[in-house]
């Protein structure tokens, strides 16, 4: 394991050194590193890999958002795919029926998804316990049924010919161009998630996760912060949904939002480690690649994913993030402490 992680430790050291200049520097460097990825992938001569990368990036956005409500704040939601569907449908309907450009439709979709989050979250967060989970379970399936039976929302044919985004005459109309858009969005999403975690709000979330009563005694408005966490993650889901809807070929269908997608998303967060941002990202990459490569085994896919999820929760609740923490971060602390004690001696 140590040997396996050794190159990553070098990478972590490198980025931490960059972070000493300014917090945003490592992000810019990583962004520049990631820019030529589609060129490298297109050298394989297969557009499919770029498409896969785009889907992964959208799911990274979703799983990072889910991690905020679940990992930071400790509230369980199981209907996140419903919010994602709301974002996708809102954005595509605005673009098709009213001719809104992507840059107006996407923020509108994000706002609508946030409002939906408030409507669902407001009654549930006042209560203790699993009420948010109960309400969101209904949300996920109800939104899908709503889309499936309402002709104006696409019904059984789905929504087609959703226009791709456009800047001036530059149209994001193939996977390679769209990559720049989703990659930027995913990077901003991850960066904001770290900012939230570092802020007073993020600390309030974590206090609620650890102990609700203790948090309220320390003057944290528990319902307001729970709602905030849920709505922030709804905003992430809305953005991811809009990005998904406008991705070429511009087609969404209610089958994109089924329970298997929900399980995939949950598995990403659980496998990556609940509350671990990079864990969520790594989980999204691993799970989506597995998901996409095992599509021909669709009949046992839920079984496998569900079983992995159950076993992970039972035997490895920290997920991959826990392993990373143990082998990369903790080792660094040990090293630092040794250096300090050497200096003192």
């Amino acid at each position: 394991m140590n040997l396996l992680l050794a190159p990553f430790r070098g990478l972590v050291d490198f980025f931490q050194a960059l972070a000493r200049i300014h917090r945003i520097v490592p992000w810019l460097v990583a962004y520049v590193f990631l820019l030529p990825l589609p060129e490298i992938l297109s050298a394989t001569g297969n557009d499919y890999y770029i498409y896969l990368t785009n889907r992964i990036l959208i799911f990274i956005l979703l799983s990072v958002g889910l991690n905020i409500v679940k990992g930071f704040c400790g509230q369980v939601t199981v209907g996140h795919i419903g919010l994602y569907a709301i974002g996708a449908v809102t954005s595509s309907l605005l673009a098709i029926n009213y001719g809104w450009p992507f840059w107006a439709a996407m923020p509108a979709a994000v706002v609508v998804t946030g409002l939906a989050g408030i409507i669902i979250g407001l009654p549930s967060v006042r209560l203790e316990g699993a009420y948010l989970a109960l309400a969101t379970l209904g949300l996920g399936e109800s939104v899908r049924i709503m889309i499936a039976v309402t002709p104006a929302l696409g019904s059984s044919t789905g929504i087609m010919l959703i226009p791709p985004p456009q800047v001036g005459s530059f149209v994001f109309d193939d996977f390679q161009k769209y990559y720049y858009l989703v990659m930027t969005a995913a990077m901003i999403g991850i960066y904001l998630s770290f900012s939230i975690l570092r802020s007073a709000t993020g600390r309030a979330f974590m206090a609620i996760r650890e102990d609700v009563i203790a948090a309220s005694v320390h003057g944290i408005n528990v319902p307001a912060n729970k709602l905030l966490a849920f709505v922030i993650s709804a905003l992430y889901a809305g953005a991811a949904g809009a990005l998904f809807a406008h991705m070429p070929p511009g087609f969404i269908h209610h089958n994109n939002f089924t329970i298997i997608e929900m399980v995939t998303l949950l598995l990403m967060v659980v496998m990556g480690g609940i509350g671990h941002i990079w864990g969520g990202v790594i989980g999204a990459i691993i799970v989506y690649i597995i998901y996409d490569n095992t599509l021909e085994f669709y009949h046992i896919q839920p079984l496998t994913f569900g079983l992995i999820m159950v076993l992970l929760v039972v035997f490895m609740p920290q997920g991959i993030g826990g392993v990373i923490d143990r082998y990369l971060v903790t080792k660094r602390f040990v090293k630092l402490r040794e250096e300090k004690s050497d200096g003192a001696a």
Partner: protein
Amino acid sequence: MDFDFTSLFAFILFGLTIGVVYGIVALGISLIYSGLDIVHFAHGEIYMFGAFFGLVFSEHMGVPYPLAILSAMVCTGLLGIVIERVFYRRLTRAGGGYTVAGMGMIICGFGMSVVLQNIAYLSWGADAEPFPVDLGEPFQFGDISLPKSYGLTAVIALLLMAVLHFFLKKTKIGLAVRAVAANKDIAFLMGINVPLMISLIFGLACALAAAAGVLIGPMQSVQVEMGYLMLMKAFAAAVVGGFGSLPGAIVGGLLVGIFENLGAAYISPNHKDIYAFLLLILVLMVRPSGLFGVEVRVKA
């Protein structure tokens, strides 16, 4: 057009009978919640398994219908006990409730529901299977004819509730179950076999779900995807009645059934499956403790 009171009455009657089934599933969920502090997300799939067991017994093995209900209840109860023992016990041992372990519990239940659904799909296929039970001519209430299976459902459901009530309130084991629900540590000190009682609670709840599954079989067809919607409606029923309250679960189930049928009749039949969710949100907004006023509190 005049307002048609006969059809209104018919909608309410059909809503009541389907509501009884929601009520039984919700009863199981409430039983698990009040006894073990677990919100069981795989209960819909347990219900689906019960329906399939009933189908196997009555169709392929020729067991008479009432006996099929009993056998399905026993089989599903055992299945539930095995699942709880193998997977959930490890999590609840670390503390149930709403802690981080409680979150693990919900995720585990959700994963388990997908696993069970997939196993059922592999064993019985994705097609909706009819569950024909010949019970004779329908009942007649004036102009309304109510199929016998609906009447039978109501009777058996009431019988199950009465038996459960008798068991919990009048027998010694029922007393032990209530003691475990109140406080596991003290119950253990009183010499009650707590692990056994936990298995019993879980098995009972799963058997109730199975009974609901076999009862609903003749009304609708049996299919793999029936569990998820039922779970949604049973949760709504449980919340409407007050989560964790046993009589509340039944009343909530009836209300959800009536609300859903009236909505389907007078608003839009296509959106039938959404009304339960709307009712859930409505109740959470107006009266979150539900009709029977279960105090929602933090267990510190």
